[in-house]
């Protein structure tokens, strides 16, 4: 373990040195500054883009940042609730054309997090692009593949579904079969998802209805799982405005078969930028804008965050809003979103809270809540 600690210390030092020279103090204090940095030189997100599938399932290297984001609410053969989230982030380090190979300007980061009745465990990985260690690409068998090391999403076709996702954390691992239709939900205005009145935006589409079956091994003990998942695909060159501290995002599977996604980007002024979508059971999409939907915290929870820095343990207290009220009056939605898994903080390089939630009120249901910038 000592060796591990030393290795981490080496990495930390290295990371500090890698970026220390150029990072401004403000950036050093807020990891999300990356998302606020100007995307000059990169391709810009503009309205009116036509989405092409399966091409858009693959990387858009001319944009600065991109992610493949899966969350799943699952029930185990033991009758208890399990939550899984797995993400793959791509970042272009500069706007120059990608030389590929060991000179690639693409970097990858991946997170796997597993919420079980016994606790929460997550893992974070990094890899450089171009060398085969991570990426999203077409396999030699002409199928979709997204991977980092041995974390692998491999499908039977050029689209992500049907596919199999295998990943792990330190003591848990899972293998999930993912099935969904080819009906993709283009968020915002035909996939143009505005994040601020200042023009920040992303291209954003989702698959809110993924049927999942599989197995999770908790300390090598298998538990069969089944349930619903949600995939978000998003790419941008500057998703956050300077005056936005972070975002609150929720994706919910409601008991009537519909799906609701709402996010709000928190402004310093207190007037948040809110947006969302409601997908009916039949697949009709209703775009939700300010005035259509509200998302209000009802109470906050104090969390003790433990982290290891250079081999030293540190603790800090965070005040996180884990109970929410979501209202969409036109859709007759007035729900409370709560969690019984408050300890779902990912103390990663880009830290955030991401965990399974329960829906009560006008609708019942389950889903995932994501809170960043706290």
């Amino acid at each position, binding site marked *: 373990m000592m060796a591990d600690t030393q290795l981490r210390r080496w990495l930390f030092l290295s990371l500090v040195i890698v970026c220390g020279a150029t990072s401004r103090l403000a950036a050093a204090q*807020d990891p999300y500054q990356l998302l606020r940095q100007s995307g000059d030189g990169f391709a810009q997100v503009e309205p009116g883009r036509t989405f092409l599938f399966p091409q858009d399932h693959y990387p858009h290297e001319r944009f600065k940042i991109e992610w493949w984001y899966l969350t799943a609410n699952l029930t185990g053969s033991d009758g208890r609730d399990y939550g899984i989230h797995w993400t793959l982030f791509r970042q272009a380090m500069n706007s120059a054309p990608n030389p590929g190979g060991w000179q690639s300007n693409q970097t990858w980061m991946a997170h796997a997090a597993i919420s079980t009745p016994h606790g929460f465990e997550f893992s974070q990985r990094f890899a450089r692009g171009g060398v085969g260690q991570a990426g999203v690409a077409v396999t030699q068998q002409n199928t979709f593949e997204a991977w980092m090391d041995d974390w692998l999403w491999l499908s039977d076709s050029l689209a992500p579904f049907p596919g199999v996702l295998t990943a792990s954390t330190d003591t848990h691992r899972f293998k999930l079969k993912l099935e969904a239709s080819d009906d993709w939900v283009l968020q915002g205005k035909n996939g143009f998802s505005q994040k601020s009145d200042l023009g920040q935006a992303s291209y954003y589409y989702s698959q809110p209805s993924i049927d999942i079956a599989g197995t999770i091994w908790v300390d090598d003990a298998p538990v069969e799982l089944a349930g619903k998942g949600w995939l978000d695909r998003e790419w941008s060159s500057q998703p956050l405005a300077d005056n936005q501290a972070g975002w609150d995002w929720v994706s919910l599977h409601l008991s009537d078969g519909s799906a609701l996604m709402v996010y709000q980007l928190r402004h310093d002024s207190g007037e948040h930028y809110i947006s969302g979508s409601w997908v009916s059971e039949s697949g009709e999409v209703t775009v939700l804008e300010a005035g259509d939907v509200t998302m209000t915290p009802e109470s906050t929870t104090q969390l003790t965050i433990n982290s290891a*820095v250079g081999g030293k343990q540190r603790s800090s207290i965070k005040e996180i809003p884990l109970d929410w009220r979501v209202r969409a009056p036109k859709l007759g939605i007035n729900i409370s979103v709560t969690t019984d898994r408050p300890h779902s903080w990912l103390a990663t390089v*880009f830290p955030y809270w991401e965990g399974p939630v329960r829906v009560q009120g006008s609708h019942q249901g389950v889903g995932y809540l994501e809170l960043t910038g706290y």
Partner: protein
Amino acid sequence: MTRVTLVTLATTLAFYRQNPLQALFVLVGLVLGCGLYTAVAQINASAEASYAEADQILGISAQWRITDRVSTEVAISDYIRLRRAGFTHFYPVIEKRLVSADGALISIIATDLLALPFTGGGVGSGDDSALENSPFGGDGWSRLTQPPYEAWVPSQTAARLAVTEGQQIRLREGKRLPPTVIRSQAQQRDQIFIDLGAALSLFETERVSYLAAPPLTEAEQQRFFDQFGSRLMLSKQSEALDLSQLTQSLHTNLTALGLLSFVVGTFIVFNAVNFSLHARQQAFGVLQDLGAARRAIVVAIATESLIWAVTGAVLGTLLAQPLSAALMPAVAATMQNIYGASVSSLPMFNTGLFWEALLLAFAGLSLALVLPLLRATAMSPNESNARDETLFSRQDAALAVVGLALLLLAYVCYPKASSVLQGFALLSLILFAGVALLPITVLSVSALSRTVIRRHWLARWALADVSHQFPHLRLAMMALLLTLIANIGVTSLVGSFRLALTDWLETRLSADFYVTAGVMETESLVGQDWIRAAHRRAVAERSYADRTMTVVGIDVDAPDFGPDSIIEATPAAFARWSVGGVGVDRVFANEQLKYLAGVEVGDTLELETELGLRPFEVLGFFHDYGNVNFSLYLPSERFKQLYASAEPQGWGIWVQDNQHAAAELGLSQLGLQPSQWVSQRDVLALSLTIFDRTFAITRALNALTLLVASIAIFSSLLAVYQFRRTEYALWRSLGMSWFGFFAVLGFPIVLMTAVVMALSLPLGFLLSWLLIHKINVISFGWTMPLVVATEPIVFLFVVVAMVVLAAFVLASMRQQVAVNDALKSLAGE
């Protein structure tokens, strides 16, 4: 402390105010002794700290190392396969030791920082500013990983190589490192870090030196073996990588030299203290008459020594800083060249060392004080002088017995010494036996000479004076003897090693050119009339007795390995090796196998080959200097059958006489770039330069101990003259000429120095023989013939003679003035 004690202390200390030179000698002895000891301790601590880090971080650190079963390097594609199979704690490392265009040694380490084991658990809580500086932020990462890349050079390395920020270090073969960025971090030591991508591009390769991994569970090891065991090898590098163990002998050697300096420093202190106590005897008597108890005098002197010890330790520690900083690069070079270990070239200070120095100073001072103090306080000045001679005679006889006993003990212990520490204990026995035998030898020589030279009155007087001067100079001569033995021992060792290494390198590098692997096919060489011979070796790595075993395929007619290269062989070994054996393969082994694994000529080893487990009969041994691994030489034809997939190394090309220019032209015409071949003559010259640089530390410490010994002689001479000043004044008043005066004073010094030199020769050779045949074998597993080179010893003796002469002249000049003053005072002027 009572008022009486304070007054006593003030009175005793007043002596040093009146005799600043004496104060200087006490101080010089303590400061030099403590300073050298602390400097060496700091160097050792710094190197050991580097090893401790090396065990835990990059490169050699990793507890596990993954290598290719057949190639000396690992393909990047294999690394990616491992990562994709879930071995996410494995990371690639390129390590190279190169030479800059200026001939400076450069150690390069490259890895993929993002691939280092990183569990992510608890990495960032969002409130830690250090952690947000991820490669996902800023453009630092792209500067490191994309052309023109960056070379992170620690500041001390940059100073050594004289490079500044932005400069590109040019390598010997013409390539340039990425622009320098001066970065210092503890774990980087003296290595230059570059990104793995930059290294692959710079070295034009798709392979890395090895993969490293932190601790692996048994299940992980088994899974690795099941999935990759046929192609890759997982080894826990306890042997080559346990640097602390591997380098123990060098550090023990350095510590021994440091302690030797301290011992010699203590001799200086002893003389100075002895003199100061002697000179103050009257004052002590007056103090006692005035009512000061003997105890108060003892307490005052003890307090005085405490003050000296603290001053000596503080100044010694201060002196140690520039001294260790000056010596450390030489140690770092030694580590790098002999052990392949990268250590920081910055010495490490810790407060523990100061307390150690203080303790040592106090202990040394106490030792130096015990005898003089007992005498000074127990006897009157007259008694003291009267007893001096008888006391020393008895002591000398007892010492001679001790000396003989020590030699006997060394003889008995010799076969049993099996560790570096025991080996050095053996050396100490020899050193101290020499010291103990010195008085009786000097006095015997003097007595013997007196029986031979009966007629010449001046000569007889001078010889008689030996027994008067020797008691005062005894310790200084002992110090000189210790220094000379150590000097001759180490000089002979280094000289023997240099000669053996030169011979060995001249054979190993007998080819005129070495062409890089993979750039020239066999067919290209056909019909080139400038070629006299061309051969290449092939290498496969296996494991034997928990150590890496390199099996090398060699052409039987290659000029760089022949019958002359074999030591301890069976009859007609080379011929039998060349034709091979039936049912058993015949090999030559490096002598490391003999000394470290107990293999003898005629033994059979079982080794894994690509055709399964095979027996190998050892026909003889060969020298393999500097290799920490085992090695077997197998005829290349047979090697190709047993290790079919092993890649051949580069070509060694022997050129026809006077065809050098044609050869270089020929190589160019074959399409080779100048960077793809090297002249072996340059390599040989470079190797020897590196060798000399490596042993710079030994030379520096030798010179420093010699300096300390010289000061000991000078201070002793001053002391003896001071003691006998009245006597000398009497000689002059009786009409003795200055010539006669200096002849009587000088001859004993010459005789004593000659005896010391004569005694140091056999003991020095004995020491180097032990260093070569005991310490070297225990530490490295190889030995070499002891070669006695007269030139450095003559040089050493000339230096010593000049130093002693200078000390004598300096002391005598003071003496001449002092005797004149004494005469004037006798005459009542």
